[in-house]
């Protein structure tokens, strides 16, 4: 990164994508964009990166950047049919500086449900991002690996504790870390990095220790039910105490919890989507004595109680800390229920919290849950004279609505 900070971040226009519509030149308040018969270009000495031209561009061609030691001249830019390759070190390429493209791609997919990246809550703690990269990971030691689901449950979900020893790994609730599986895939390439949300609060799985917990489900079938062996999940689930793991990260600057007293949390999750919720809940449990206020409302779905990770500990949480609403879709003893059904059942509480601009919503779990949850919010709002689509927009842009689904 040292090297990157000495480079100039030059604003360019991708001539392969640009349609020469003149919108950017028209928009630029300081006339820093010009054109010839061939290309539209940015005057490197004049452009002050105000960003006015970015949104109006109909093609996205305007949103191109290169880290360079010396700016490309106008003559060079005029001569291009395509942008020159980016020769800066990979870490310097992305606008976020520390996030490798792979993480950016995974994050984008996970954030689709909220319409792209959203800002964090205003009172969130400042996150550290990308302290360790794929090329330079940190070595963690497995301090524990426990099965969370009942022995007879069909899914094997595990609580895995990683200890970072004397390496700094500051991670906030809601952030993730990247697991690097050793070895190569069938095509001889290194395995892709997998992201896992931390399930422990910022001061460690065990308070004061430099450790982090993960919630990992052993993948044995694909979405369609066909047998498949998840590379990273099986690797993690099979780890023994004392084993070493390469970790990158931390990652994530959006799905963070508010820090100010009195903030309410609505948490909605399924399966291992409970990891960040556990982290946030545990953070608040440890601070109960401070009487900071704020309600916690959790909707948590699983097939059966035996398959619900952290079922036992959840049941022991004090009622004054959190309102836990569990939904089971395959429990022989009760009718089929999904998280959205539970939400409807607690319609008044949900509506009351949504009406409070101190409420923060977190949604994490399978992609399929999104539409059902959205519909439930819409219905609950309609029944309480709230406009969900306007509210959601407002919450999203003010860092109060966060979605991570996969």
């Amino acid at each position, binding site marked *: 990164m040292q090297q990157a900070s000495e480079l100039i971040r030059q604003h360019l226009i991708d001539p392969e994508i640009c349609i020469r519509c003149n919108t950017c030149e*028209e928009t630029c308040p300081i006339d820093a964009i010009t054109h010839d018969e061939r290309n539209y270009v940015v005057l490197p000495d004049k452009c002050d990166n105000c960003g006015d031209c970015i949104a109006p561009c109909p*093609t996205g061609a305007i*949103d191109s950047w290169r880290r360079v030691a010396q700016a490309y001249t106008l003559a060079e830019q005029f001569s291009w*049919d395509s942008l020159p390759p980016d020769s800066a070190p990979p870490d310097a390429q992305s606008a976020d500086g520390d996030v490798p493209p792979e993480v950016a791609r995974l994050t984008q997919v996970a954030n689709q449900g909220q*319409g*792209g990246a959203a800002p964090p809550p205003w009172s969130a703690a400042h996150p550290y991002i990308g302290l360790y990269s794929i090329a330079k990971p940190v070595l963690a030691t497995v301090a524990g690996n426990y099965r969370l689901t009942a022995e007879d449950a069909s899914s094997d979900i595990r609580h895995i504790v990683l200890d970072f020893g004397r390496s700094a790994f500051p991670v906030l609730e809601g952030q993730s870390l990247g697991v690097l599986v050793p070895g190569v895939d069938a095509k001889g390439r290194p395995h892709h990095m997998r992201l896992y949300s931390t399930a422990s609060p910022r001061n460690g799985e065990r308070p004061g220790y430099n450790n982090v917990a993960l919630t990992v489900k052993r993948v044995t079938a694909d979405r369609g039910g066909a047998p498949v062996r998840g590379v990273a999940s099986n690797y993690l689930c099979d780890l023994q105490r004392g084993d070493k793991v390469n970790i990158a990260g931390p990652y994530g600057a959006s799905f963070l919890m508010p820090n100010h007293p009195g903030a309410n949390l609505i948490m909605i999750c399924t399966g291992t989507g409970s990891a960040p919720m556990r982290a946030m809940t545990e953070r608040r449990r440890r601070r109960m004595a401070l009487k900071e206020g704020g309600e916690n409302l959790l909707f948590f779905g699983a097939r059966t109680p035996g398959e619900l990770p952290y079922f036992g500990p959840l049941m022991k949480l004090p009622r004054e800390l959190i309102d836990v609403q569990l939904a089971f879709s395959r429990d022989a003893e009760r009718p089929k229920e999904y998280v959205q059904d539970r939400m409807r059942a607690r319609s008044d509480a949900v509506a009351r919290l949504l009406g409070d601009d101190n409420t923060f919503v977190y949604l994490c779990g399978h992609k399929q849950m999104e539409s059902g949850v959205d519909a439930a919010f819409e219905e609950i709002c309609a029944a309480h004279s709230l406009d969900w689509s306007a509210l959601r927009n407002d919450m999203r842009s003010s860092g109060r609505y966060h979605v991570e689904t996969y």
Partner: protein
Amino acid sequence: MSGIDYSERIPNNVELSSNKSLQRALEHWQPEYLKWWGEMGPEKSQTMDVYLRTAISVDPKGWAHYDYVKMPDYRWGIFLAPAEAGRHVNFGVHKGEAAWQEVPGEYRSTLRRIIVTQGDTEPASVEQQRHLGLTCPSLYDLRNLFQVNVEEGRHLWAMVYLLHAYFGRDGREEGEALLERRSGDADNPRILTAFNEKTPDWLSFFMFTFITDRDGKYQLAALAESGFDPLSRTCRFMLTEEAHHLFVGESGIARIIQRTCDVMNQHKTDDPAKLRGLGVIDLPTLQRYLNFHFSVTSDLYGSEISSNAASFYTQGLKGRFDETKIGDDHRLEAAEYEVPDVVEDRIVARHVPALTALNERLRDDWTADVQKAIDRWNRVPEKAGVPFRFKLPHKGFHRRIGLFTGLHVSPEGKVISEAEWTRKHKDWLPSEDDRAFVHSLMGRVTEPGKFANWIAPPLSGINKQPVGFEYVRFG
């Protein structure tokens, strides 16, 4: 002034609530518009969640706000570009006078006709394209189609606002008639011929947005120069939206060319029959579609010599493209312009007073713009090592309006006999077989990140989203 009031039933930045009778009139028109959208807007799309761009203010930062929207809930409204302080009439006999904030009485009917003709093209194109969603080549393209459609709908709003606000009862009646005409309807068609043609497949759609929406750009740009300030401000904001439509067309065709070139190289063939067998559109067929759309759209500019165009200009109603950037007297009192003429089966050039040749000039400006985009298309085969290059046909080719009406002109610009035309026109214009083949490719692809076989994925997604983003969700 740049903020848009979304608390209103009709989002606007024209302080609509301060003019109650205008507000009522538009609120009366709004349900009629939504009814039209329900009947003639994109088919079977009403419950889909579409990742659309909506203007939340007209300043640079605010007018590209992306979110999932059900199209009937799209916030159609009235947005004008910010007023330019001290703006003048910049051409014609009124040059130098303060720009008009009200319609000058003597130009009332002319202006109304200009606005209605422009306004009529907007719903027309939505009607032409309403079945295309059923055969989309990807979610990305489906989203782009819908973005084009909702913005054409908004452009209708822009024109109806002018009619309601400045033309009284006549204007309101015109506003209703805009919702009553139907593209291709035998009894009550849209005003301009090209807007009564079918847009039967995605190749036609891309050609239409590439070529015909570019005519829209040039017409709007000429009207953005108008001395009638509300028209100028309306058109200026419409132009920023129009650019996206041109992008959809230009990149759409470029992606088709890319895919065909890839398959040509993979299978080492340029045989159209083989390529069709491999499920891609051969380049000569693309050229024929280009010839068709270019010639039909050329007609939209009208006759080479036009006294109407001259008076629009003299009266300060419709300028030239980039009028204020041209360094001349802006009255065209003595200037000349070159137009084509036909002398004994030869096409020659002659000079006429520039004032009478304004249609031709705008057509030439547009043609130069199309040519530049075609040069960019040609980089695709060039890069792929394929020798084929696309060429624009001569301006006299396949024309139905103006000087070339009734003549047969080859794409190279030679006047030819009826017999030769009959023999060769199939090489130049899409045949029934061509259209049937293209039609046969139109399957529906809706899995995120997947594209129909005949088109390459785009170079990047919308709003920095990945190409495989779920741009449309089916409710």
